[in-house]
């Protein structure tokens, strides 16, 4: 079955066609970002739709001790749970390596792209800092979770406000949200470019994703500078491929960022 789909997809690509009629470098429609999907409970939240793919993101804030090597900085954490609700192939249980990769790749762009000014997340040096936790869930997994998660994470961070923190009792009042947004300095965003049988393309469907020879996720900042990368897939890439893939990612991250 997989091999039949693979043959079908590669045969179509030779004619510059895809199973759903798109061009190789075209995203599915609609693409949209909706905010405040969980305004009562999350500090920030968003839903991203790319074609039939739907993911949600929520931001929660906690207060804790800083790490020994960054006494005056807060932290960011990204978590992905591949809900069996979203895809018949996902199962319950501890996070699979697939879920871990999604979380770490999204985390890498946010962290290395310095999305948040972590110094502004410090409450008292050496004692108390904010930890920002981004939780990502697919609702309908119809492919390209990497791009959807990256966009949703950034949208939820943008949507988030601090809860009230009482310095005397050292307790968070989650019910009283302040009007202070998170110190979102930069907007690192990721686009994944895939290669099937020599053709470079974006926004793969599930079937295309299963036929990938190689993939490259590229995190890009507003000024076009790269801040994170992850190569995957069973085959190798040439230098020329990488150069083209980065150009494609830079172009599409700029387009996607406009949705925020």
């Amino acid at each position: 079955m997989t091999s039949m789909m693979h043959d079908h997809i590669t045969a179509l690509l030779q004619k510059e066609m895809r199973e759903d009629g798109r061009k190789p470098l075209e995203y599915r429609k609609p693409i949209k970002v909706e905010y405040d999907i969980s305004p009562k409970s999350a500090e920030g939240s968003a839903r991203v739709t790319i074609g039939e793919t739907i993911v949600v993101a929520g931001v929660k804030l906690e207060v804790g001790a800083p790490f020994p090597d960054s006494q005056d900085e807060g932290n960011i954490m990204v978590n992905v749970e591949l809900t069996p609700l979203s895809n018949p192939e996902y199962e319950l249980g501890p996070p699979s390596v697939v879920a871990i990769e999604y979380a770490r790749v999204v985390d890498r762009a946010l962290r290395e792209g310095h999305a948040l000014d972590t110094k502004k997340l410090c409450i008292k040096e050496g004692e108390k800092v904010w930890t920002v936790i981004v939780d990502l869930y697919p609702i309908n997994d119809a492919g390209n979770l990497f791009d959807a998660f990256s966009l949703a994470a950034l949208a939820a961070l943008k949507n988030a406000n601090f809860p009230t923190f009482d310095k005397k009792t050292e307790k968070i009042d989650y019910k009283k949200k302040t009007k202070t947004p998170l110190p979102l300095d930069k907007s690192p965003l990721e686009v994944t470019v895939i290669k099937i049988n020599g053709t470079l393309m974006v926004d793969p469907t599930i079937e295309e994703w299963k036929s990938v020879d190689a993939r490259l996720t590229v995190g890009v900042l507003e000024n076009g500078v790269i801040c994170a990368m992850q190569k995957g897939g069973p085959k190798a890439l040439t230098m020329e491929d990488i150069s083209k893939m980065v150009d494609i990612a830079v172009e599409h991250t700029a387009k996607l960022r406009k949705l925020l």
Partner: protein
Amino acid sequence: MKRNDGRAPEELRKMEAKTGIIKRADGSAMFRIGETIAYAAVYGPRELHPKFMQNPEKGLLRCNYNMMAFSGSGDRVRPSANRRSREISMVIEKALEPVLDLTAYPNAVIDIFIELVQTDAGTRCAGICAAAMALADAGIPMKDLVSALSVGYLRNEIVVDINGEEDMNEGATDIAFACLPITGEVSLLQVDGEIKKDVLLKALDKAKEAAMKIAEVQRKALKERYHDKHDA
């Protein structure tokens, strides 16, 4: 008595229901009551794994209830199943099973996954409402719908569909209730708190009345799916 959100004692929170929202699933639905939002997806009947669990006489109804990490009222909810979510998953299965004929699916499983995006009390009941709609959306033969809500006993008065504030801070006796709207049979009943028998019976009557209103919302959403042909 005034309720904290201005509702009358027998007034439900605003409801919203949709079906077919998760295209990869065999059936799916969203049910919202007040600030509580539940998604449900049905997969199956499909082959049951591991194989030793298969039963040639009867299929299995398997449910998983989960609160998203950001969906709680305070701190982040740690992911993965805990004792609370396991028990809730189990009572949801029992609340839905009476409307299904599982003997029609030997060796198979019907999986229901419920995810809460936001919570403000009544999450298991919202989950049941969404799951019942998702089962119908999946085309699985059902004797009846299942409609669920929580009723409370607060300051000597019965209140319908309690919210988080009434449940956690005002100390209402909380009754989780589900019934089959056609026959009125009860398929979920859990009571947390003190209540006298005569009050309980009155509360259950009010719960049943309210469940009829919920059933209307569920039916309407199921019908809408087939009215709007452009949606597909």
